[in-house]
């Protein structure tokens, strides 16, 4: 069979059910496509053919048997180099695997390697990676978005069937939007964070990046669920999310927040999103304007809380036990200083400094504590909004993909890429990005759907209906 790489997981499942020797062929086609394309796309930092082929040889009977999946390089896989695209973790091979990775493997998925990312997930363009940036398959001169840029680009370029990313302020949804694929950030606590190398502990979530909504539901069903190794994972039953894949939004109440349609929103993006709202209306949903009054504080609040937690989470990278250790240090303090100065990239240093400052004596109350209080207000905005609607629809990113190098000189403009995605992290809400159009330049535009905590089923219903009523998801980059 040809072009197996271009299929979705659910399509491949049907074929594998008829022919269980297919996984080997899928891998072959995938690896040769990676060999052909990845020099241009640069989505992969590690391709593990041996491990994948060994996995494929074992006949498993699971929800994802024989399905190749790519993991972002901040998700630990036992004995496989996991670096978070940072020099400071160069050569680090975790002695254990992340729970999400174990769950995929236990359902027969085949892990094929690691995807490029912004260093420690600090970024919205995949440009802070120590390996260099990934390129957007729709326009190789453009960024794929970040920080799960490698995962999104690989899915868009059919270099993998599906992928996992992580999302702290939009790092799954924004690259999914820029690469024209589906990216879901589950409710905080829905998926175990054990084995996800932490950026901001109160915001991080692992989620699927896939070619369509059905694959997203399929992957979430496998990785979601309580994990006793993660105290912040929630002990709620995991529904079969594929049962939410109905093409029907009659009576669904959809809110469109007016605060998201402000200066800085690209006209083409706005038009696509408004058209999407119209489509929902025509399909029987009740679409109305709502208000999320504290939206304007979300980015600044996030850029206090996230770096603060990151500064503490990254303190462990000190050259003592694993990873990079600088040479020529004259004493312990010198070793710490040299190691971290040499091996952290600039954005990592920037965020560590920011975070340390916000937590320090004399500043904690004015910054960190205050930001957490504003965060409560942001969450309350959503709680109030969800009294009157079942889900909220917004643009995912204010612009389509921007050129590589365009925003690297201006951190604030880079930070503003996350303006629409950050609030869902702050409030712990589930949110998805699905393709909803293209710019005149042919770059994908994404629609974000946000729902109540643990209401991923509502998201899948709304997303599936939109997807199946359009053909944006069927478009592929000419690469």
């Amino acid at each position: 069979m040809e072009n197996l790489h271009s299929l979705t997981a659910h399509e491949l499942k049907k074929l594998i059910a008829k022919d269980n020797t297919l996984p080997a062929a899928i891998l072959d086609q995938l690896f040769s496509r990676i060999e052909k394309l990845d020099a241009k796309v640069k989505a992969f930092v590690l391709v593990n053919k041996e491990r994948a082929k060994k996995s494929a040889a074992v006949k498993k009977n699971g929800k994802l048997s024989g399905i190749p999946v790519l993991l972002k390089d901040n998700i630990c896989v036992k004995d496989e180099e996991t670096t978070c695209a940072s020099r400071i973790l160069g050569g680090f091979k975790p002695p254990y695997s992340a729970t999400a990775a174990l769950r995929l493997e236990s359902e027969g998925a085949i892990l094929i390697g690691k995807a490029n990312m912004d260093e420690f997930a600090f970024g919205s363009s995949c440009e802070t990676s120590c390996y260099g940036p990934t390129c957007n398959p729709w326009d190789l001169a453009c960024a794929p978005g970040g920080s799960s840029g490698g995962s999104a680009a690989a899915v868009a370029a059919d270099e993998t069937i599906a992928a996992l990313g992580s999302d702290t302020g939009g790092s799954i949804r924004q690259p999914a939007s820029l690469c024209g694929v589906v990216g879901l950030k589950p409710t905080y606590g829905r998926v175990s964070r054990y084995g996800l190398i932490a950026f901001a502990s109160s915001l991080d979530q692992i989620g699927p990046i896939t070619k369509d909504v059905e694959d997203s539901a399929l992957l979430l069903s496998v990785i979601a669920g309580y994990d006793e190794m993660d105290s912040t994972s929630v002990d709620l039953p995991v529904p079969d999310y594929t049962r939410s894949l109905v093409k029907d939004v009659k009576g669904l109440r959809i809110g469109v927040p007016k605060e998201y349609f402000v200066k800085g929103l690209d006209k083409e993006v706005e038009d696509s999103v408004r058209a999407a709202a119209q489509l929902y209306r025509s399909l029987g949903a009740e679409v109305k304007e709502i208000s999320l009054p504290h939206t304007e504080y979300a980015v600044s609040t996030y850029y206090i809380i996230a770096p603060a937690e990151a500064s503490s989470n990254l303190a462990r990278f000190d050259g003592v036990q694993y990873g990079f250790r600088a040479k020529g240090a004259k004493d312990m303090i010198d070793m710490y200083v040299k190691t971290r100065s040499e091996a952290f990239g600039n954005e990592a240093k920037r965020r560590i400094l920011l975070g340390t400052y916000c937590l320090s004596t004399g500043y904690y109350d004015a910054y960190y504590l205050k930001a957490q209080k504003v965060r409560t207000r942001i969450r309350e905005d959503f709680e109030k909004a969800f009294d009157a609607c079942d889900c909220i629809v917004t643009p995912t990113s204010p612009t389509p993909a921007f050129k590589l190098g365009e925003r690297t000189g201006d951190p604030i403009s880079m930070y503003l890429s996350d303006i629409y995605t950050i609030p869902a992290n702050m409030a712990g809400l589930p949110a998805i990005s699905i393709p909803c159009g293209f710019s005149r330049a042919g770059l994908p535009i994404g629609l974000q759907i946000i729902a109540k905590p643990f209401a991923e089923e509502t998201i899948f219903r709304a997303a599936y209906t939109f997807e199946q009523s359009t053909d944006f998801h069927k478009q592929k980059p000419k690469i």
Partner: protein
Amino acid sequence: MNYETVIGLEVHLQLATKTKAFCGCSTKFGQTPNSQTCPVCLGFPGSLPVLNEEAFKAALKTALALNCKIQKLIKFDRKNYYYPDLPKNFQISQYDMPLSYDGFIDIGVKDGAKKRIRIKRVHMEEDAGKLMHPEGERYSLVDYNRGGMPLLEIVTEPDINSPDEAYDYLTKLKSILEYLRVSDCDMEKGSLRCDANISIRPKGGKKLGTKVELKNMNSFKNVRSGLEYEVKRQESLIGEGGRIVQETRLWDADKLITKSMRVKEEAEDYRYFPEPDLVPFVVEKSDIEKIKKALPELPEARTGRFKSQFALSEYDAGVLTSQVDIAEYFEECVKLYPNPKTIANWIMGDIIALANDKALNIRELGFPAEALAGLLKMVDSGAISGKMAKDVLVEAIETRMSPDDIVRKNGLSQISDTGRIEEIIKLVLKKEEKSANDYKAGKRNAFTFLVGQVMKETKGKANPAIVNEILKKILGE
């Protein structure tokens, strides 16, 4: 100028749970370095802490036993600082909302009065690893077995006013902790560590003097010695017109002095913030009540009960309740041999002496309550003398044989047959005619000599009371 001393004590206590505070690693002491570790307590990237429920319960028990109020919301905080024995370069601890606060321990002072030492807070945290600095080498070694062990930090208000009171507080605290069985409180193994804060001020003064932090005292006696030295040092420094520097000093147990550590220019900023990986939770009042009710009888209550139930003196009750193992042993013995005063004397005398000699605790000595009861019953029945019983005790402990078996084996049975004793006495009197006459002439110690001769003749087995009685009768003629 008369000065008064103001002392506050900070005790770090390792809880004796099976596993560590936030992971499932064993807490067994003295194992091969770095053999009891996992990604969590090594702080590997991606690892997450999970609170040990037993550790939390032990912490609650301790807080309640120390009369503390329990915080409504339980949360943890990160204390951020860099050091190689702290793998994450932050310690999970509790900052502004400790598990418990406003407790107290009462210690006895002169004239039987009680003094209340207030406990400011008791909170939970994890221990760091252990660093070793091999002499003369340019490297240090770290063992992370200890990293992640559950600790309680118990801090007093500066209510302690002398090194002796500090010693008493620590003894009382240890006794309570042992009764709870939450820790083995072993300063040598490091499961109990103590730092002190000490300042002096003119007698009757209200303002606190500059305080000095004192560390590196590895026994209660050393805590007292270190504080005694500090009091003298501070008094003489002020007497010479000097000023106390706020600093940390280390007690040197060899040279018996305190030495200054490097004085830090600034206080460390730990950048405390709530630990986002552990979800705050509420302890229900009903659960707290349940745990409170289930608390074992604590030392003070037991001392009071021993006084009333067994008619023991304050002193005796105090000694017998000073360690929970001794108290339990005493009660077991009394159940089998209902003469509390006798039991008390044997325990407080010979038995504790033997235990101390061998550096064992009373359980490890291997002389169970049944054995003591059996021994005493033999003395009562006249089968052996009181003096013999002491020897039997020693042998029983050495050989782990029962007293009955020992007496039988050695043929120690006391001679209580009056006829036989009379025969032997008459024999001795014939031999020692001179002494017999001395006694009749009024020399009292001749009697003692004669008794001794009878005992010698019977190889110590004659029942001394009977010997006395019969000898007196015969000589009295």
